[in-house]
């Protein structure tokens, strides 16, 4: 069977992803056509589309994802049992001396690399996630100075890829993207040219993945917070690394409100519970916080172009990097594997893996699956 035959249209996407609540609102289906819109974190279908095949389905990271095929395309080898995915080097890093710290969270590696890639022309624009009040807002910037306006973590799902789709439709072909794991997966799907478009050109210049354990439903979070604080008075939200187990809300007037993480976990998107990827395995570079070191990042370099940019960024003083301590690496592997195992066991129990025919959630080799959940 032609691989393309597995790709369906809006109807099936609605049935298999939206109705089943697998959707994490990544934005891969937004701005491709007039039928999908993202509003306050949720994906809505405005009108039915009658096409039997569409990019919406082809790019969706929650349906018919063949990990072997994707890994083959991205890394030249099948999807293995490494808990951190395919990579070249792992380091710890932070912003270099060329970068003023102006309000980024953790070590500033993401903002610094984005800035560097823009300044040096590795990318001609960057897709980032800004904020309007609490609401994450996708943004496409071309001016390096705008990078830091978008810095800081967002804990609710954002349709960031809608800005990528918009930038592509405007003709940009060297786009940098800061993406969550599901978004990075969608970008990998896009880059695999699933519909075998003859004029296809890879529109990305750099994909920076960010570690993610889960995201909350924006509306649920907004409702949750508005019952506790005046939302317009919030300055910053942070989840300090374990074992704190809290979410901290910093108010503009100086007050700090601490919310037990368990209360917040009730607001996590259902789709996140099926996610097997903590470290954004399908990116060029993955960045996360370094446990126990609030001012540092973990940096995973996965591809050639990722390595080139990281090397040059170090050389030119945009980031500083050093070897990762073994115990930190072991902890990262443990945390990442934990997420994989939880999600795979759940998906397996619900018979969502490797289904015959088409429309399965995820495909991966049986032996890899068994190893990961063992």
């Amino acid at each position: 069977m032609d691989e393309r035959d597995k790709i369906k249209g809006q109807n099936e996407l609605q049935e298999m992803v939206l109705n089943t609540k697998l959707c994490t609102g990544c934005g891969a289906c937004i701005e491709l056509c007039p039928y999908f819109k993202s509003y306050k974190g949720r994906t809505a279908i405005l009108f039915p589309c009658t096409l039997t095949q569409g990019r919406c389905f082809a790019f969706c990271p929650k349906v018919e994802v063949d990990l072997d095929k994707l890994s083959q395309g991205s890394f030249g080898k099948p999807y293995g049992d490494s808990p951190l995915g395919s990579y070249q080097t792992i380091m710890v890093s932070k912003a270099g001396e060329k970068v003023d710290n102006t309000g980024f969270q953790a070590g500033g590696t993401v903002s610094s690399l984005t800035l560097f890639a823009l300044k040096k022309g590795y990318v001609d624009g960057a897709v980032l996630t800004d904020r309007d009040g609490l609401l994450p807002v996708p943004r496409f910037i071309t001016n390096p100075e705008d990078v830091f306006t978008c810095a800081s973590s967002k804990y609710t799902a954002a349709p960031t890829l809608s800005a990528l789709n918009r930038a592509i439709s405007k003709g940009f072909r060297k786009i940098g993207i800061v993406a969550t794991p599901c978004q990075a997966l969608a970008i990998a799907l896009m880059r695999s040219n699933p519909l075998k478009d003859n004029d296809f050109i890879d529109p990305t210049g750099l994909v920076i993945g960010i570690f993610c354990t889960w995201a909350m439903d924006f509306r649920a979070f907004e409702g949750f917070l508005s019952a506790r604080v005046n939302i317009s008075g919030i300055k910053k939200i942070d989840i300090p690394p374990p074992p704190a187990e809290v979410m901290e809300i910093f108010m503009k007037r100086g007050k700090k409100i601490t919310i037990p993480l368990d209360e917040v976990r009730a607001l996590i998107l259902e789709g996140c519970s099926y996610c097997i990827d903590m470290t954004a395995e399908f990116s060029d570079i993955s960045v996360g916080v370094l446990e126990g070191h609030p001012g540092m990042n973990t940096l995973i370099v996965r591809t050639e172009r990722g390595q080139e940019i990281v090397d040059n960024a170090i050389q030119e003083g945009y980031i500083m990097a050093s070897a990762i301590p073994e115990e930190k690496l072991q902890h990262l592997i443990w945390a990442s594997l934990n997420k994989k195992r939880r999600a795979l066991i759940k998906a397996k129990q619900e018979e969502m893996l490797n289904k015959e025919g088409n429309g399965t959630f995820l495909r991966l080799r049986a032996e890899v699956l068994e190893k990961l959940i063992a």
Partner: protein
Amino acid sequence: MSNLTDNREGTQYLLMGNEAIARGALEAGVNVASGYPGTPSSEIIESLAKVAKERNLYVEWSANEKVALEVAAAASFAKLRSLCAMKQVGVNVASDFLLHLGLSGTRGGMVLVTCDDPGALSSSNEGPSRYFARMFEIPLLEPGDFQEAKDMTKWAFELSEELKNVVMVRSVTRVSHASGNVRLGKLLETKSRAKFKYDGSSLDADEGPAESVPVGEKHRLQQEKLKTATKFFEQSPFNTYHGPEKPELLIITASAGNLYTREAISLLGAEDRVGLLKLGTTWPLPPRLLKRYLSTTDKIMFVEEVLPFLEENVKVLAAENAREVGVKTFYGKNEGAIPKTGELNPDIVVSALCKILKIDYLAMDPEYEKKLQMPTIAGVPERARTFCPGCPHRASFWSIHNALQMDNRKGFVCGDIGCYAMGRFPCGFETTKTLHAMGSGAGLASGFGKLAQFGMDQPVLAVCGDSTFFHAVMPALVNAVHHKSNITLVVLDNSGTAMTGFQPHPGLPVNAMGNKVPCVDIAKVCEAIGAKVEIKDPFDLEETQQTLNRLLEDKQGVKVLILQQACALSPEKRHTKQYEMHIDENLCLGEDCGCNRLCTRIFQCPGLVWDKDKKKARIDEALCVGCGVCSLICPAGAIKRKEVA
């Protein structure tokens, strides 16, 4: 000079039924006419408004039918002759006052004309109004042709003054909207001195206060008036009989049934076998007349539309007089020869007659009928009901639909009466989910908006037009505000009573007679009631949708969004274009992923055409009115608009 004011007695004109009714009122010297627009009644008031200055009339489009009836009654109480016109649903609205009016009685001749819509060709129901006459004990006349429409209306004024009560004249679509020859009578010069006398006793019908109390006395008096009416009806020339002395079958009919039956009898050549009793005075029935004709045969058939009003009343009379008239076999709605719903036509009457009289009749050779239908079926393109090109409702529903989809909480719209009732069809993106009476959208929304207590979390919207707002939405809005119902009311303000032909309403600066009048500002009314009000242009799709989403999330009480954009057919907009439109075929994505014919498959403005050969969208120059909205929906920016200089 209009045909309607031609004072040469005996002159014949081809008049529409509604014009004939208006002429009848002029021949009766009517002074005041009021109504609320509604198909098929609107031309009566429109015709009278046109000659208002010439004939020194006062004519108004009232805020609703109840007010219209009250306005007309006031004239009657002041000893003027007045006419009030409305469609069948209007009588429901006016019925509360009508019940009381029947008790209080009238002074100057007063006629209520109701135009029913069997088959609901232009209505949301086909509810018959005739039962009101029986229920409220007032006389009912039904013209059986166009001449009678005029003559009966004129006589209704005289009868009203004889009885001192309101007289109801009931027409139907095929009488009101068809045309026939009418021989004119003399115009009566209007007497113009109005005075309301109230110093007499409460039972003084001419000079006492006008009121329905004391009920016991007034009710008894009212029933005596009906008895008097019966006496007039026994002699009335509007009840006619054609046919043999002893027919095989007696048909009793009225109104348009008369036209259909005459045609059916003639088609079948059954003139010698069938007697046709056409009644013009249908409530109260003249018993002596009916006994006479019931006695001529054993088989009786009723031909009337929708509910069996005549049938029931005649059967009661026949039962009461069974000893004299004998036992009958009845054909009609209860027996099944005539359907109980929908319009009649000569074919239905023909087939009923054929069955009863055992006539073999082939209206049309089936082969020929098939042949006849071939070119029509093949040549007529499929067309769904839709909004006109450039209709602001399409743009409004587009934004409402999209806002609700994006909101994603299964929100819905309570619909109302107007062109926008089509909001439930694809042209309105199937947005409205309830449809009942005028103002019911806002009333239902008011109720839905209180159900959060029982776990309902769906956003609730209502739509209404500008005329409907004044007609019946205001009390519902007051209710919603007072009870803190969480709703959004969208007023689709297209500056006129568009569906019925741009009759003015209280929101406009001109009245039925073309005079300048103060207009009532919908936004200010809503604000005064206590709603949060915003005004937007529905042609600004993005702004409208964003406003709607914001309002849907506002959980505090009643929000009103007024979407102002005149109807594309309104006199001020017609034949003007804001934009020249064209499609850049190089940009048009057609059926490709990324568009899939959004403009011609979903938006479906008739001004947009799908070119099957080129696989591109095209502007239909003949239909496009240049509103420019489609350029805002095109995902590829292929629909271009250029401001007309």
